[in-house]
């Protein structure tokens, strides 16, 4: 009964005209910012943060949160249409979203991601509203050893994100991990690969890396291969929006699995939507009956990461609200918006400020509904964006990428980082090196390293302590099983290999 009363209170709060208006404003701004490559939720929320001084804390949070999860809806649009991720967590969506667009199925991809986003969001909110106290205490039991094991599992599960040469994929993962070591080592304070530059001391900004590697590299590539004909190849008719029966059949299970994965990683402070998107994509590819469809426009390949990152965005509020611990810089701003009004989130928030907690939770439902209503009709408009000639579209995108990279830390250096990784990304395309594994290594590498070293300090150097803990031990065993199974599978497949179609480079030699 309590829950019903609370939900009613929350709904009452969320549906008050002022909160409704700010929720709409938040999700609208969020979608827009998500669509624009470069400018992310963090920059947008930082800019709007001062306004929250003049708002009720609940209203302020509803707006900021709307921006936050709204970006996850919009982020996939540019990934699918332009092969340029609007947000970092949508980078994975490029892998199958862009091939779908090239096959004239951009509308389907956009519709499926909007629905997958809604599915993931709703799943995340359910977890948030029913299990918050349970999940929060359970998240506390994760120590560094457990995080380490989880990140290793994530790396193994997602290591198949690229198709093509496994060696190249692995090389890019390692390169990503190496790039991530730039900066001050958090355990010893030693500066690594900074060459005395203070700008490098904080490491490479993930936003700048992703924008360069995916966005700028895509633009350079397109400029070189004159692209007028590819516009013709893109169907923008209304009929192209409708998912087929086969698309729907491929929707439910991936969406369900990805939402679970997303909810899990979202609730753990420090991990988040990008890890969730990678892992869910990797899992779908592994469980698929025909993994070779991935990377060539598989619907599961857009559904999974988008359901996962939206679910993660919602469950990220669990540690934020119930422990008072921000899992990311964006969440720190949310806590700040409460602190401004003298509210300190923590285990007592739900009992001390039920209107705030439940109002926010219910506003997520409202906001997600608004987003799906907002996004589905917009698809037609977005797809039409493709008819804008590249010579007008790309300079505009480049300007936005630069503004976006600059606005996160107000560092001109980050704009240079975008350029540097744009050039690297282009070079990688020439040598058909996949970019997604580099981003994966960049995201997971530092987590693996830092949690491992911290776990070693906490275990006083005893490695067996990592295997001996119940959570980390279980996760590592699962990881090992996946490894063994995939090696076994590749051994069994090998005899068939000679009969497989010849690799493209053989044709080149003619």
């Amino acid at each position, binding site marked *: 009964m309590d829950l019903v009363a609370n939900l009613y209170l929350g709904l009452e709060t969320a549906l008050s005209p002022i909160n409704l208006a700010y929720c709409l404003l938040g999700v609208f701004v969020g979608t827009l910012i998500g669509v624009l490559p470069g400018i992310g939720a963090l920059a947008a929320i930082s800019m709007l943060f001062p306004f929250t001084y003049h708002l009720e804390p609940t209203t302020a949070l509803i707006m900021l949160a709307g921006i936050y999860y709204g970006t996850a809806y919009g982020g996939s649009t540019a990934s699918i249409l332009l092969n340029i991720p609007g947000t970092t967590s949508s980078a994975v969506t490029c892998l199958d979203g862009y091939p779908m667009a090239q096959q004239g199925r951009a509308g389907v991809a956009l519709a499926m991601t909007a629905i997958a986003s809604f599915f993931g969001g709703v799943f995340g909110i359910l977890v948030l509203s029913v299990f918050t106290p349970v999940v929060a205490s359970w998240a*506390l039991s994760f120590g560094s050893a457990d995080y380490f094991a989880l990140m290793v599992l994530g790396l193994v599960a997602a290591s198949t994100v690229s198709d093509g040469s496994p060696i190249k994929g692995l090389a890019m993962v390692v390169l990503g991990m190496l790039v991530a070591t730039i900066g001050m080592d958090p355990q010893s304070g030693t500066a690594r690969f900074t060459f005395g530059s*203070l700008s490098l001391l904080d490491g490479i900004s993930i936003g700048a890396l992703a924008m360069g590697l995916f966005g700028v590299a895509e633009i350079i590539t397109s400029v070189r291969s004159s692209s007028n004909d590819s516009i013709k190849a893109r169907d923008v008719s209304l009929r192209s929006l409708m998912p087929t029966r086969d698309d729907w059949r491929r929707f439910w299970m991936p969406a369900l699995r990805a939402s679970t994965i997303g909810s899990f990683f979202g609730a753990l402070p420090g991990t988040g939507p990008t890890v969730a998107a990678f892992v869910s994509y990797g899992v779908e590819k592994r469980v698929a009956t025909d993994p070779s469809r991935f990377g060539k426009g598989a619907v599961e390949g857009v559904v999974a990461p988008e359901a996962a990152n939206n679910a993660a965005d919602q469950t990220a509020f669990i540690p934020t609200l119930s422990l*008072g611990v921000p899992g990311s810089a964006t969440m720190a*701003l949310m806590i700040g918006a409460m602190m401004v009004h003298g509210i300190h989130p*923590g285990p007592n928030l739900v009992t001390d400020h039920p209107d705030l907690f439940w109002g926010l939770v219910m506003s997520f439902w409202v906001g997600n509904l608004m987003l799906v209503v907002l996004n589905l009709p917009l698809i037609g408009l977005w797809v039409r964006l493709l008819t804008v000639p590249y010579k007008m579209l790309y300079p505009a995108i480049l300007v936005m990428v630069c503004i976006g990279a600059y606005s996160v830390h107000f560092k001109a250096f980050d704009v240079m980082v975008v350029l540097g990784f744009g050039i690297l990304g282009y070079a990688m395309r020439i040598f058909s090196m996949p970019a997604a594994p580099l981003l994966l290594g960049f995201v997971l590498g530092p987590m693996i390293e830092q949690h491992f070293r911290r776990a070693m300090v906490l275990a006083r150097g005893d490695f067996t302590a990592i295997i001996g803990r119940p959570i980390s031990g279980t996760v590592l065993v699962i990881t090992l099983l996946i490894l063994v199974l995939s090696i076994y599978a590749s051994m069994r497949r090998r005899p068939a290999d000679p009969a497989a179609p010849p690799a493209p480079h053989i044709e080149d030699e003619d």
Partner: protein
Amino acid sequence: MKLLKLAATAALMMSGAAAVQAQDFPDGTVTLIIPYGGGGSTDLIARALANELGRMWDEAVIVENRPGAGSMIGTASLAQAEPDGYTLLVNTPAHATAPAVQKDLPFDPKTDITPIGMVATSPYMAVAGAAVQSDDLTAFAAESQDRPMFFATAGVGTSSHFAAELLIQQAGIEGDVVHFAGGGEAQTNLMGGHADVYISNTASVMPYVNNGQVKPLVILGPTRYDALPDVQSSGEAGADGIEINSWVGLFGPGGMDPALVEKLNADMRAAVGTETFKQVLADNFVQPGVGSAADFKAQVETEMQLWSDLAAERGIVAQ
């Protein structure tokens, strides 16, 4: 003789000009750098200060978050600004601790930065997590003999790191430091029982103490803390040589005209004295700052010395 006269006249004219400059200040937009990301207590206090100063001066005071390198990225950009008072910065004791581990800074923290005044102050406090049995420092020091403790920090070279090293040294505790990415993560690990103690200012720990997520162990310093009268002070437990307080301070670029520093110090004090600002301080569990610009400068320099000595002594200097 003639030359001397000329020099004297020139000096007079210059000081006259400087006085005028200080009197007219500000005539235009003032930028306040916050060397941290948004949402933390320093960010909130600095933004409130910007609001008050803006209202007082009737000029726009723009806040810029320039996080990174334990506040040194924002401080470096301050060091490059003109010392005309139009670029200011708000920082914490990280201003003194970060240079103790970061040796390649592109500025000299002593000469390229001018301390203007203390905005707020609060004691440091050690809080303990689920795995710790003791309720005060005396018992804790004994407990650490049986089970060496883990001191969680907010990162290498942060004040939580240095305060932990100082307490370990002065109170004879068996323990090691383990670095986390920020005070939130450090305290989460306390709650989960993965690490044992975390030391920070009251602004950072009091929300968790009030929610019963971590327990207060000891106040660093000779005296107790008003808001928690039952919590022992380190002086009472017999640990001497810990006379440090956390603070939030206002800084300008190096080589500022003393008249301008005085003017800024006075205006900052007036801002701190307003009711709205006092409320912000109370919400963040800190007290209004005390002392003149000269006092603050002396304190900052003492702390810089203290931390760089401690860093050398305990081998926490990065290679």
